[in-house]
């Protein structure tokens, strides 16, 4: 039993940050369940079953009923949406309104460990929601098989590839967060609409497609569907993974820098 204060090892330090965030979540999870679990389930029901009943299974849906075509992509899209939310206001608040980050870095925890803990927390947080979504989707018969477990991994990777740079950006903001609306309206929303979640990107005009290829969501959606439908091919898989991992790496690195710049003044 540790009764004298000491410097926790770096992984332990990051984990303690997760523990702190969990303490908050335990008390406040109810409010976030609606947006992070219920919302994708509603999409699945309304678009997958409702609208999907009017869509004939064919080449565009990889020969599957629309709801089964949609489910693995919706998994990625909703994880990414939740990630966007979790990496904006909560981060700004911890710098500016609650100032809790300033409290943490007055202890032996460093700002780098704080970033690691915050990102780890976001993954776990997305993980809960994504698993809940998959359970509901399975009960509704929207899943094609155990391949979605791999889709889940890809969904989390995609969401974090998006979250990490957004966390880095959120650490630079000193306003009331109006800029986040721009992120939601001009990045998250169009990405969700057009990056292949609801219909294949081949339906888009050729000039739009390169923009879609830049989004992590498109790469994640490709991976997720391939995993769920058992149609993975080596080279495209490696390509998508490389892009997402690179984005996550760059984002995490930038977040370390922006946190340090904000906290060590």
């Amino acid at each position, binding site marked *: 039993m540790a009764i004298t204060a*000491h410097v926790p090892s770096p992984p332990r330090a990051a984990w303690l940050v997760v523990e702190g965030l969990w303490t*908050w979540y335990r008390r406040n999870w109810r409010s976030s369940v609606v947006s992070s679990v219920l919302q994708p389930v509603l999409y699945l029901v309304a678009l997958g079953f409702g609208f999907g009943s009017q869509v004939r299974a064919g080449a565009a849906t990889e020969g599957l009923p629309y709801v089964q075509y949609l489910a693995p992509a919706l998994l990625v899209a909703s994880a990414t949406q939740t990630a966007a939310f979790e990496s904006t206001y909560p981060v700004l608040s911890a710098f500016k309104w*609650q100032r*809790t980050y300033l*409290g943490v870095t007055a202890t*032996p925890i460093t700002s780098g460990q704080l970033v690691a803990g915050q990102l780890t927390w976001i993954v776990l947080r997305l993980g809960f929601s994504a698993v809940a979504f998959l359970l509901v989707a399975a009960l509704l018969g929207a899943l094609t098989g155990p391949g979605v477990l791999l889709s889940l991994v890809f969904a989390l990777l995609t969401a974090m590839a998006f979250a990490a740079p957004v966390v880095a950006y959120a650490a630079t903001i000193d306003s009331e967060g109006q800029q986040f609306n721009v992120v939601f309206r001009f990045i998250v929303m169009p990405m969700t609409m057009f990056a292949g979640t609801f219909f294949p990107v081949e339906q888009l005009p050729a000039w739009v497609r390169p923009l879609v290829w830049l989004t992590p969501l498109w790469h994640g959606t490709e991976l997720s569907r391939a995993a769920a439908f058992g149609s993975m091919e080596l080279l495209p898989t490696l390509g998508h993974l490389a892009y997402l991992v690179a984005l996550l790496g760059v984002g995490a690195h930038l977040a370390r820098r922006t946190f340090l710049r904000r906290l*060590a003044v």
Partner: protein
Amino acid sequence: MHARDLAKRFGDFEAVKGIDLDVRPGEAFGFLGPNGAGKSSTMRMVACVSPRTGGELTVLGMDPLAQGPRIRARLGVVPQQDNLDSELTVRENLHVYGRYFGLSRAHVRAKAVELLEFAQLSDRADDQVEPLSGGMKRRLTIARSLINEPELLLLDEPTTGLDPQARHLLWDRLFRLKQQGVTLIVTTHYMDEAEQLCDRLVVMDAGRIVAEGSPAELIAQYSTREVLELRFAPGTQDVAAVADLASRVEELPDRLLLYTADGEAALAAAHARGITPLSSLVRRSTLEDVFLRLTGRTLVD
């Protein structure tokens, strides 16, 4: 703690302009200074959260730039602005914070009970922090700073916002910590606080140390034994009329302060000249007078 030519620069602005300090283990050391003097900037460098931009600094025998986490593990910090998690309960704030020091859950839980008692917050332990009064939040921040049983406690304006009773309680607790051998570094705008708590203090102004010593030494060096305060109706005070009655005269908006060894004699002399203040008061010099002399400002502004 030991500092030589310690400096802090924010862009083009130099908040701390090369100060020398030595605080010995077990000592209670104070910073006095007007707003913007650089007290908090200095405290944050000592707390190893703000990197210095010049000079040398050693805290608990280590360099903050190289060994920040190891030093912070042994420090207690009460920042000027509270940074509690207002969405957690009082008790959870202590639990979460204690864990960051690598302490076990069981230990933190037991320690929290003790600290809640200390801060007189036991009956609010399971309430959210958000609706607590400012003074209660301050007491919680102070309790939190003790969770790791620090060897060096840094308190940046600890009692600002506390009611008189809570202030006296806190002084008593700090005094006890000092007796247990904890080193205290305090910034304050209250001279009674500085006189009560500090063995030694410095007066800072515009990033520099302008005086250093024990409260008694500072008073002896920078002020006279007594002060005569003459209060006048607005617009009727005349410094020239009393200038020669004291070794120094300070003019405040509503009164004149005459620094002299014998206040009663100066008052008699003023009366003899036909000067008729609204009221008069003879008192001993305090740190407030030292402060006024050194910075040209009153402490609480």
